[in-house]
């Protein structure tokens, strides 16, 4: 098994493997790897996603309101995000 990635890196990688994902979906998918850590909070995940969006490696074009009327953002990776992953993803990790 490859080394555990830094959380932000792993989030970018996970988003690259799906068409789009909400913060909750990303947390659910990464729970087996990071779930026991103190940094595994919705606030931390939301901040990483907003930063990656601000750095133009994720997109947040897909939005809707959930049943409670709260904002639900689906993030997707863009070409620049894919380029970074292709270049810097450590060996042992596959980009799909």
């Amino acid at each position: 098994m490859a080394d555990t990635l830094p959380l932000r890196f792993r989030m970018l990688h996970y988003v690259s493997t799906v068409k789009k994902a909400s913060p909750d979906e990303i947390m659910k998918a990464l729970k087996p790897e990071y779930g026991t850590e103190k940094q595994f909070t919705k606030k931390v995940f939301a901040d990483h996603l907003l930063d990656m969006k601000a750095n133009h490696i994720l997109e947040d074009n897909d939005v809707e309101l959930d049943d409670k009327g709260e904002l639900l953002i689906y993030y997707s990776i863009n070409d620049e995000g894919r380029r970074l992953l292709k270049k810097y993803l450590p060996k042992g990790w596959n980009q799909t």
Partner: protein
Amino acid sequence: MSISGNQKAIMMKEKLNADFTKKGVFTGLFSGFTWGLNSVLLGLALSMIPVMGENVAIFAIPLAAACINDSFAGLWLLLYNGGAGRLKEVLRSLKTFPGQMVCVAALLGGPIANGGYLLGISLAGSAYALTITALYPIVGALLSRIFLKQQIVPRVWAGMLLSVVGAIVISYVPPEGVNSETFYLGLLFASLAALGWGAEAVLAVFGMSMIDPKVAINIRQLTSGLFLAIVILPIVGGWVVVSQVFTLPGTLGAFAIVGLAAAISYLAWYKANTTIGVAKGMALNGTYVMWGVIFSVVFLKSPLTQNLVIGSLLVVIGATLVAINPKEFFKKGEVA
């Protein structure tokens, strides 16, 4: 989902992104404020070091102080990250290329830029050296434009230029004349400092697109502190100064507080740079020159000069121009 519902969701998202940007602007200003505090506190801590001869004063003391400053900041950040459960992230990040780039950024911003700054002042005089090093936000903005393809609107350029001019006016001291053959070498070192700080920000922002800024700044401070301690201090005889500081509990305590201010300031700077871009982050951090002098006037009773008033006014107008964003981030979101 009805159209009106979707429109509401889009509006909520735009507000979320705008609030995030606003927070980034305040974080950038806060980094300047705390960096100004750090400069003043560092000056106080330095005055607590006993007189050790002129040769030691020029290079050994400032570089030893830089080493203690960065090392303490690194230790404070280890405590902070440890408390937040991010210690594992430090090692994970160091194993990746972006994390290693943060180490390179540390060497550029720490030993190289700080060393160049000190050598510039001693060889070319403060007037020229400080003027050149004050250009670092412009260097950072240019490098971020080239290497990170970050867009910089004319308003931000204008604001940054005003801030830099303000910083130069504040730190201006009458030149003593070009009287030595080492003068141009001094200018070269001062340019190296501006280049080093600019390059640090760009490399760090590249790294932080994939690693946590809170972890990146921890790596930066520890790398810089260690490199200064192991490589630079033995060359300039700085360990004598460090061991002297460690025998004086009051002075050591003062440096610990200085390091805390540095840790908070750098944490804010790295976070701002990644959230609002290098150009804005650096321009807002550049307000430290103004804060530093204001702290000196208020707490150390330094005289309030005409240069300070005019310079500070320019910095404030410049920083406001940089910070206030008439919906440009909304446009960015739509284009992307």
